[in-house]
């Protein structure tokens, strides 16, 4: 379990001070995957650097399984870091080492006996689906395979926490899915606590249990995926189920509907048509399966005579969130 409380980080740049993290708090339970999403410059990399103590946070605390990370002295930083496995955007493997030697690297640092290293490395390579690739150098591996080696290396010292900084940003879509599925599976089997930094909503959709939206160094929205997806006016819900921009072309009333969970598949619209004898014209829509449930976002146009207030009440009683578009 990771708990981050009120984490702040400021950089001095000459006269100016830049606030890269402005009081970030989050908590990720064991065995689950938390996504941190944000635009460029939001502070994602800074957060990672603070969590791994590559940079010292200005204030605030980071706890892993109840043990404080930020207050340790320099000599203990190395021990603290060994409880964190880290996966990088570009894998950052050593070119001078084979896949197996790369995975062995963290184990050498703690003077693990050779026989144990080779047994463990073989097991890790199996785990990430690279059986038989131990003798290959990184230059002989594809991007996806390199990332698998990177994941095996991150897991070598049996950390409690896996930090992934843009793990799939350098990969093609198919490889991205494979790597995400691997991270997902490992989280379940090894009961890891995982933090995934990304700017791609697809990563969040595919593997995250919960998500935080980072903007200008602040968490502006956070929660379990199914909760944030069910927030009609949330930026995350909008990003999860994007609709094209709305340009009014007529004076007819337009509604935005969020159908979360079971109501998404229910016959809400046909019910509307029958009950109010209304013309319903779907302008745009987006449907997603998140954490095994269906979510939908619809933009519908009604006819001029439709009784808006009653329709809204009807929809809301059916569990649909309604917003009248301006």
């Amino acid at each position: 379990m990771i708990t981050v409380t009120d984490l702040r980080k400021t950089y001095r740049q000459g006269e100016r001070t830049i606030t890269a993290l402005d009081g970030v708090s989050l908590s990720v339970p064991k065995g689950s995957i938390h996504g941190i999403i944000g635009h460029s410059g939001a502070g994602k990399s800074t957060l990672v650097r603070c969590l791994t103590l590559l940079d010292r946070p200005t204030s605030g605390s980071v706890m892993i399984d109840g043990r404080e990370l930020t207050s340790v002295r320099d000599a203990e930083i190395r021990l603290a870091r060994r409880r964190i496995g880290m996966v990088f955007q570009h894998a950052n493997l050593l070119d001078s080492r084979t896949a197996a030697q790369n995975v062995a690297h963290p184990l050498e640092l703690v003077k693990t006996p050779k026989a144990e290293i080779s047994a463990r490395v073989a097991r890790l390579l199996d785990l990430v689906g690279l059986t038989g690739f131990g003798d290959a150098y990184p230059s002989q591996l594809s991007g996806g395979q390199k990332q698998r080696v990177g994941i095996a290396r991150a897991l070598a010292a049996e950390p409690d926490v896996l930090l992934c900084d843009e793990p799939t940003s350098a990969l093609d879509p198919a490889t991205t899915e494979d790597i995400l599925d691997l991270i997902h599976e490992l989280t379940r089997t090894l009961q890891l606590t995982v933090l995934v930094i990304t700017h791609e909503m697809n990563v969040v959709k595919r593997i995250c249990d919960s998500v935080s939206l980072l903007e200008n160094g602040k968490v502006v929205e956070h929660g379990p995926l199914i909760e944030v997806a069910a927030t009609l006016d949330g930026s995350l819900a909008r990003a999860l189920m994007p609709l094209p921009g709305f340009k009014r072309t007529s004076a007819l009333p337009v509604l935005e509907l969020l159908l979360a969970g079971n109501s998404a598949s229910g016959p809400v619209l046909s019910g509307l048509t029958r009950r109010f004898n209304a013309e319903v014209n779907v302008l745009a829509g987006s449907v997603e399966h998140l954490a095994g449930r269906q979510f939908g976002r619809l933009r519908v146009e009604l006819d001029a005579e439709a009784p808006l207030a009653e329709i809204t009440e009807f929809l809301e009683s059916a569990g649909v969130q309604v917003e009248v578009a301006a």
Partner: protein
Amino acid sequence: MNFFDELFTNPGITEALPEEFLATIQMVGIAGFFTVLIGLPLGVFLHTSGPDGLRPMRITHRIVSDVIVNITRSIPFAILMVSLIPLARFLTGTSIGPVAASVSLSIGTIPFFARLVESSIRDVGSGKIDAALVMGSTRFQVISKVLLREALPGLIAALTTTLVTLVGYSAMAGIIGGGGLGRLAYNYGLQRFDTTVMVAIIVIIVAIVQLIQLAGDWAAQRVDHRNAATAGSGRRHKSKPGDVVGV
């Protein structure tokens, strides 16, 4: 007498040349050894103490980098060599001969080699260093297992360039008392206008330089696994999983 007959009868070639050849090798060997011994750690220090290094040390870095290294490098070698004669005498007890010349040769090439080391190390991506730090590496482990090992092809190339430079410097050192092929060329070529000896010396020096370059390129290529084309050569020294590549 034709050129080839003279090649085997000229005392400048049959007697002086082998001896001076060994003196040149001796100078390059001794100076090369000390250049690596001192220049390698110095180059590492230049990088690690720099502003983006593992352990920035603003003032010490300034002093070592700007003052010591840059000043030494900006003094022309011939002048540096002459000015170091007292030091050579203090360290070796004599101011002439290949051993004494090795002192100024080393001091002349150490800063040069250190800069080359620094720039090879700078090419190691900071992501690799971050990865090693996050694993819990000590600074020393980052230097030995990441910086030096990843930069090895560049370091070998740096050593090659340095040795070639040393061959050139050693000829200059020869003229002012170091001995070796430089002095031979000066004595026979300049003072006696003996073309045969001169040609023989030039051929030998070119051969030495070519040999150093070939050996250096071969070694650098052998340890370079950075791209798939050369990585194939790595298959020859196949390793078991978990084997440690030492430095």
